[in-house]
């Protein structure tokens, strides 16, 4: 457990604690919708993926998509949560044109997944457990398009009925940073499980962020819910802004009123959407068109057995098996692809060196390229080849960086670059000797200073020789020979 005080923010009246709970809507990676056979592909022509069920035509009935249940249960298992073998679908009633039936089918009192937990990784290398309250299944609504015509609103029902998981956390998060870490970990878990693609920019994951503030040790304050925030950065900005807003109000003698707010991404501020008094009465009741969902315990166990290794377990294994630092292990397991990439390269190589390279120069170059790991010019085999020639002394580590840069440009493998540019490391003592002699001769004054006790100049001579040899001298051999020459 980290020290809570380190998250406190200063107000005019002293420190404040921010309390955050998250409700994340994650779209399931199913081919068809939660209760109809219509497709869920992103970006299709408006209203091209709408069945009569999705459009709520008279007499149409929902039929549960078994794949969605499986994905939700797998996610629940990934969150180490209780799986409820009996759960119920309810109707949440309200009128809106992009909700054709006038109700959303959701799970209210009896969700399919109960209490679970999620470990967030913080930048200082520490980790903290956050409670998961529940996970339930529900339908997405359609989309109202207000910008297509000056006086008409258009409706696109492609999303109508698409399966969402709503994943609700306990109010356990204490800073914008933790809120971001929570989303990152949740995204990693659903991606590992293949239950949600986690693409926030396409709307596959959206967060409702509940924020309140309190003096340390006091009961929870009144919370405001910021709806539908669609990136990790925006979530963090929204928390920063909203907590400061609330602190300012309270310190100014005001009171927080419970309300729903929107985050204006352009201005970076939250704005009131509707107050508690204006809140809908959703008139939840069990959907009589659907029977309660009964799961077979053996089936759930089967899913549990077949879960992939999840980020936390993988991180622990990377630490113990490869001797990595918790921080590096955390960076590597953040995406399943990068963890896999690391293990591929690390096979038969010095894992720490591999980790340093991947989390250092390699990721820097990858991020700069904007490409995915899969499409990147340097694959596992090429990176491995480079690390091999560094390890066997063909090139030095610093020369290796030059080779890497050349590989990025040409896409060639390390040996080809080395041969082409003549970068092969010189271990021939005769050549190094010659270079040392030349440098010492050219720097007689420095040599004299060194001899009179200025030891630091050793590094100067190493640098000069290396420079003269185009960086190709074997560093160990150079050190060795230079020391002998300088010996009194």
């Amino acid at each position, binding site marked *: 457990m980290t020290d809570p005080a380190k998250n406190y923010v200063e107000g005019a009246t002293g420190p404040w604690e921010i309390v955050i709970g998250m409700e994340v809507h994650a779209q399931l990676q199913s081919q068809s919708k939660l209760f109809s056979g219509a497709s869920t592909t992103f970006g299709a022509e408006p209203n091209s993926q709408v069945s*009569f069920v999705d459009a709520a035509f008279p*007499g*149409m*009935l929902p039929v549960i998509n078994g794949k969605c249940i499986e994905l939700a249960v797998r996610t629940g298992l990934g969150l180490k949560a209780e799986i409820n073998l009996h759960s119920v679908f309810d109707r949440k*009633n309200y009128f809106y044109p992009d909700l054709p039936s006038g109700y959303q089918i959701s799970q209210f009192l009896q969700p399919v997944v109960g209490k679970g937990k999620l470990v967030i990784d913080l930048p200082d290398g520490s980790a903290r457990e956050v409670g998961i309250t529940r996970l339930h299944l529900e339908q997405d609504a359609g989309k109202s398009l207000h910008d297509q015509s000056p006086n008409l609103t258009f409706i696109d029902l492609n999303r109508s009925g698409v399966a969402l998981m709503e994943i609700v956390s306990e109010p356990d998060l204490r800073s914008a940073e933790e809120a971001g870490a929570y989303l990152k970990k949740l995204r990693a878990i659903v991606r590992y499980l293949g239950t949600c693609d986690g693409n926030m920019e396409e709307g596959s994951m959206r967060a409702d962020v509940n924020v309140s503030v309190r003096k340390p040790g006091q009961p929870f304050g009144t919370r405001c819910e910021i709806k539908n925030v669609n990136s990790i950065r925006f979530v963090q900005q929204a928390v920063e802004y909203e907590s400061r807003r609330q602190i300012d109000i309270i310190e100014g003698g005001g009171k927080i009123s419970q309300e729903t707010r929107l985050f204006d991404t352009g201005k970076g501020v939250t704005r009131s959407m509707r107050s508690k008094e204006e809140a809908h009465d959703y*008139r939840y009741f069990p959907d*009589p*068109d659907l029977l309660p969902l009964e799961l077979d315990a053996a089936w759930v166990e089967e899913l549990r057995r077949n879960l992939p290794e999840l980020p936390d377990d993988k991180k622990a294994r990377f630490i113990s098996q490869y001797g990595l630092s918790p921080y590096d292990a955390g960076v590597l397991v953040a995406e399943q692809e990068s963890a896999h990439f690391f293990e591929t390269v690390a096979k038969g190589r010095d894992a720490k060196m591999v980790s340093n390279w991947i989390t250092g120069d390699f990721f820097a170059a990858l991020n700069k390229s904007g490409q995915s790991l899969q499409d990147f010019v340097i694959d596992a085999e090429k990176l491995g080849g480079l690390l091999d020639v560094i390890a066997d002394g063909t090139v030095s580590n610093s020369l290796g960086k030059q080779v890497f840069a050349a590989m990025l440009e040409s896409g060639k493998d390390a040996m080809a670059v080395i041969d082409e540019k003549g970068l092969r490391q010189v271990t021939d003592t005769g050549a190094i000797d010659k270079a040392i002699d030349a440098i010492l001769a050219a720097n007689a004054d420095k040599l004299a200073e060194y001899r009179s006790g200025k030891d630091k100049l050793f590094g100067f001579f190493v640098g000069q020789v290396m420079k003269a040899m185009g960086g190709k001298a074997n560093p160990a051999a150079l050190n060795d020979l230079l020391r002998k020459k300088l010996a009194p």
Partner: protein
Amino acid sequence: MDGFTIAGARDRLTKGDLSARELTQTAIKAMEAARPLNAMITETADKALDMADAADARRKSGEAGLLNGIPLAIKDLFCTEGVLTTAASHILDGFHPPYESTVTANLWKAGAVMLGKANLDEFAMGSSNETSFYGPVKSPWRRRDDNAGLVPGGSSGGSAAAVASGFALGATGTDTGGSIRQPAGFTGIVGIKPTYGRCSRWGIVAFASSLDQAGPMTRTVRDAAIMLRAMAGFDAKDSTSVEAPVPDYEAALGQSLKGLRIGIPKEYRVDNMPAEIETLWQQGIAWLRDAGAEIVDITLPHTKYALPTYYIVAPAEASSNLARYDGVRFGLRVPGKDLTDTYERTRAEGFGAEVRRRIMVGTYVLSAGYYDAYYLKAQKVRTLILRDFEEAFGKVDAILTPTAPSTAFAVGAKTNDPVEMYLNDVFTVPVNLAGLPGMSVPAGLGSDGLPLGLQLIGKAFDESTLFRVGEAIERAANFTARPEKWWEAAR
């Protein structure tokens, strides 16, 4: 069409001394003659003749189904592909479904012929067929020496009138609280509400999803057995439909009642129930005893809570089911100054008074602060009612009760008192709440010359026993009365 039954027509069609086209032509003529009854919202004579020709062709090639060439009326709550479907509501103006309900699709697969879409109470909400946007249906029956127009019962009033007046050999009905059995009782025909889940609800405009069930309305018990077999069956498109084999119900007919135990619930007597209904009930008991059944007194102690429970559960579900009629995608739209105004105008103009009343009641009982006291309590009582029946069915094989507490009443007699109207369903709603099969069989005439029905209630998925016992009542009652065809003169 007089004297025709589905079974009788089937035999003549099989023999070949009658063609489907001839039968359908006769039915169409009779349907047109019966227009003063206002039994049909849409007549589909051309389609009927095409379907009859197709039936004749199938007969020739040896592919005749269970109902090949049999002309039927379809309650206008069933979606029929390309044919106006209204639910008797203004709000569905111009709605031509691009799909066919499972039940009607099953009927057409069995070779049946559609005469048209039968009138009903708006969204099946009513017990007299007076809430239809298309006007009330008049019962073919009149009181002895009295020309006052009577109601055929509801909500399947058009279906009942179509069968009772003689132009349709059978009709589909739906029954949420008695909407098949009460009009069947009022018009002297047979109507069965099967077990919940026996017939698919897919493509039937929903009223109260946990109660709605389709069933046949026919002149005889045998006809109902034939027709239900064609309608019923598991449907993957309806999650509440049950995967149970559909037996040959006709095979159950004629079996002895020896060894069968028939329960008589003491709670099915209400205040002001006419003595002749009690008398008829006793008569029914005597018939069954004579036929070899054992009569057992039973108790269904929560019966008195059934009606209030029903009038919480059904409107609650309806208030949600009817939210989709918003003027956005189909049916009526009354433009307003903004979205909310358009919703309000469309729904105020599109729904009739009874539908609006039930939407408001249903919205109220589901509201925050009232849910526990009304909806949740009603669900608990519903469980108790089901338990009453389960206990009773530990002792008996079927239950005999009256169908309704009165004979048909005059048009307009109860329209100003909804509670009085709701009381008509007092014997039928417990069956829907418990999801059990129930059948009304004509058993006699009241002192006013109007038909009276007896209701049989069976175990879940044991419709066969109902047909078997129902036919015994039919035989004993020898109910042959038919309404005089005053409407032919009225044209």
